[in-house]
C-alpha cells in the first residue's frame, strides 16, 4: 500500500520480499523442476542413487550421449499416441467453449434483464447445480453414456456441467451493461432478439472472453468426466497422462507421463500469461460485488 504517511521500515520491506520470494519458489519450482526433468532419462529424474543426478544428467549422458534428451517427448507423442489425446482435447475444448458460450450468453442475458421472481430461482438452482461434485452427476448418467465411450457424449456432459458457472459469470457481467442501452433500442422498435444481436453483441466481448476462458479451463482440465466416459482409444490429455502411470508406478512408462504433463501444461500457462487480467476479473466478479 503506497500511502504518503505510511513509512515502511527497511526490515519490514526485506522480510516482505523474502516471504514473496519463498512463496513464489513454492508455487513455481515444482513446474520448473518437472520441465527440467522431462529432458532427462528416468534413471536421472527418479534416481535411486542420488537426486543430484537429475542436475548433472549422469545417466542421461551415458544412455544418450548428451545432457538433454527429447526421448520422453517422442516416446509419449508418437509411441504413446499422445498426439491423438491432444487432438481429442482440442476437439472437446473447442466444442465445449463454443456451445456453452452460445447457450450461456442467451440465458444470462435473459436472466439479467428479467425482474421476475422465477429468474432469481433459476439462478439459485444454477448455484446449487454448480456446487454438485461432478462425479455425483456422472454416476447419474446411465448405460448409453457409459457404453458409447465417444467424444460427443463427453462434450454434452461437460457443457452441462459448465453451464451454471457460465450463467453466473455472464449474468454478473450483463448486470454491468446499462439497461438504458437496450431500452432505447426497444423503444425504437427492435425486438428482443434484434436488440441482443445489434446492441448487446457488440459490447459483450469482454465478458464473453472471460467466460470462454473458464469454460476452456474446465474442458481442458477435466479428469472425472473424461476418465469415466471415454475409453483408451479416445482419451483426452489428462486421463491419458493417468494411463501412462499404470496401476503400479514402476510398470507404466513414467517418463512419458512427465513429458506429457509438461506438454499439457505449457499451452495453459501461455494462455494465462496473455489473459491473466480476464481470469482474475472473472474470479472476483462474484466475490466483490456480492
Amino acid at each position, binding site marked *: 500500500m503506497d500511502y504518503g504517511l505510511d513509512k515502511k521500515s527497511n526490515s519490514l520491506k526485506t522480510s516482505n520480499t523474502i516471504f514473496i520470494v519463498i*512463496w513464489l519458489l513454492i508455487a513455481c519450482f515444482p513446474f520448473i523442476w518437472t520441465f527440467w526433468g522431462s529432458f532427462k532419462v528416468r534413471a536421472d529424474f527418479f534416481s535411486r542413487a542420488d*537426486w543430484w543426478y537429475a542436475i548433472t544428467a549422469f545417466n542421461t549422458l551415458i544412455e544418450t550421449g548428451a545432457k538433454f534428451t527429447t526421448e520422453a517427448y517422442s516416446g509419449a507423442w508418437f509411441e504413446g499416441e499422445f498426439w491423438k489425446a491432444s487432438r481429442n482435447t482440442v476437439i472437446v475444448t473447442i466444442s465445449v467453449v463454443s456451445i456453452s458460450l452460445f447457450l450461456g450468453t442467451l440465458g444470462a442475458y435473459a436472466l439479467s434483464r*428479467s425482474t421476475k421472481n422465477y429468474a432469481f430461482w433459476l439462478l439459485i438452482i444454477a448455484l446449487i447445480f454448480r456446487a454438485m*461434485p461432478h462425479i*455425483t452427476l456422472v454416476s447419474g448418467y446411465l448405460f448409453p453414456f457409459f457404453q458409447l465411450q465417444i467424444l460427443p457424449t463427453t462434450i454434452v456432459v461437460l*457443457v452441462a456441467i459448465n453451464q451454471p458457472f457460465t450463467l453466473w459469470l455472464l449474468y454478473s457481467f450483463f448486470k454491468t451493461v446499462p439497461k438504458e442501452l437496450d431500452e432505447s433500442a426497444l423503444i425504437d422498435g427492435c425486438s428482443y432478439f434484434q436488440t441482443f444481436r445489434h446492441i448487446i453483441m457488440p459490447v459483450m466481448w469482454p465478458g464473453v472472453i472471460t467466460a470462454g476462458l473458464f469454460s476452456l479451463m474446465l474442458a481442458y482440465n477435466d479428469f472425472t468426466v473424461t476418465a469415466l466416459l471415454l475409453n483408451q482409444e479416445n482419451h483426452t490429455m489428462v486421463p491419458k497422462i493417468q494411463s501412462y502411470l499404470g496401476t503400479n508406478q514402476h510398470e507404466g512408462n513414467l517418463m512419458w507421463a512427465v513429458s506429457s504433463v509438461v506438454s*499439457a501444461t505449457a499451452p495453459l500457462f501461455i494462455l494465462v500469461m496473455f489473459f491473466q487480467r480476464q481470469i*482474475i476479473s472473472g474470479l472476483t466478479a462474484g466475490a466483490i460485488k456480492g
Partner: protein
Amino acid sequence: MPNRSFFWFFLPAGLAMILFIGLPIISTGIQSFYAQHDQILVEVKKCDPFGCKVSVVVDQEATSKIKDEKPLGKFNGFGTYIDRNHLAVDQVSEFWGESKSIGDFINKVGNLPFYKALVFTLTYCVFVTPCVLLLGFIIALSLNAISRKIRGPLIFGTILPMIVTPLVGSLVLFWMIDAEGIIGANLQMLMNDPYLSLKSSKTLMWITIIIYGVWHHSPFAFVVFYAALQTVPQEPLEASIIDGASRFQRVKHIVLPHIYPVVTFVALISLMDNFRVFEPIIGFSAEGSAQSLSWLIYDNLVNEEVILFGSAAATSIMTIIGISIILAPVLIRTWREFKINR
C-alpha cells in the same frame, strides 16, 4: 423482459441443465434404491471317464435375460444405504455392543469404508480451508506492498498452482516428494532414515495431501483477497496512521472488517471445493491410505466386472446431502440480498 421472450432466450441453457444435470440427479436418486442382479448359478454335471463332477457355474443366458428385463437392477430400498459399504448400520450397532471404550468404538467404525472416507474428507476440509484463507490473505497483503511495476509477473507466478488441473498438480508434487525425487531424497538424508517413504505411512500421506490442497487452493483465495484489498478506502487508513495505529492494528480493525463479506465467500467456495476432493488421491496414488467420498464413487464406477451404479448412487446422494448442508448459508445470504436489491 416479457415472459415469452425470456422463455425463448433461456430455453437452450435451461434445457441443457434440466436434461444433463437435473435428470442425472434424479436418476442418481432412483438408482440408489436398486442393486445389481445376483448372478444366476446352475449346477452342471460333467462326466468324463474318471467319474462325474458337479460344478457350479454362472448361467450367462438367464443372467443377461434378467438384466434386459430390469435394466436398473433389483429393487433394494434403503438396503444399499445401510449395507456394509455405506452407513453400515448393523456393524456400527454391533461394534457399539462389543466395544469396551469409546475410543475402541470410534476406531472400529473408522475402518468401515464409508466412515473412513468421510473422516478423510472432513479432515481435509477442516485443515485445508483455514490454511487457504490465512495463506491467501498473507500473500495478498504482502504482494500489495510490492511495487506496482513488477506485480504482474508475480501474480502470474502466484496463480500457477491454481490453473493446472489437480491431477497434474498433484503428480508434479508427488514426483518431487517421492522417495526417488528431490525433496523425498533430501528428507531421507535429513531424517537419516533411508526407508522413509511417503507410501508407507498413512499420516505422512494425509499431511502431503493436505499440503497439496493448501498449495492448490491458496492462489484462489489470494486473487479474491487481492482484488478486495484494492477497494479498501484510504482515508480511514491514513487517519489511523496519524492516530498511531500499528500495522497489525490497521489490518485487524480496518482492512479485515472491510473485506469480511469476501472472506466468508472464499471460505464457503473453498469448503465446497475441498469437500469433493478426489483427483489428488489418484495423483499421489494414495488409494491405500486415504479415500474420499468422491473417490468411493469413482471406484464403484470404474469397477471392471460390473459397474456398481447402485452403490455409487447411494454414496452420491449422501455426498449431495453433505454439500447442501455446507451450501445452506450461501443460499440464505443470496436470498436476503435479492430481497434487499428488489
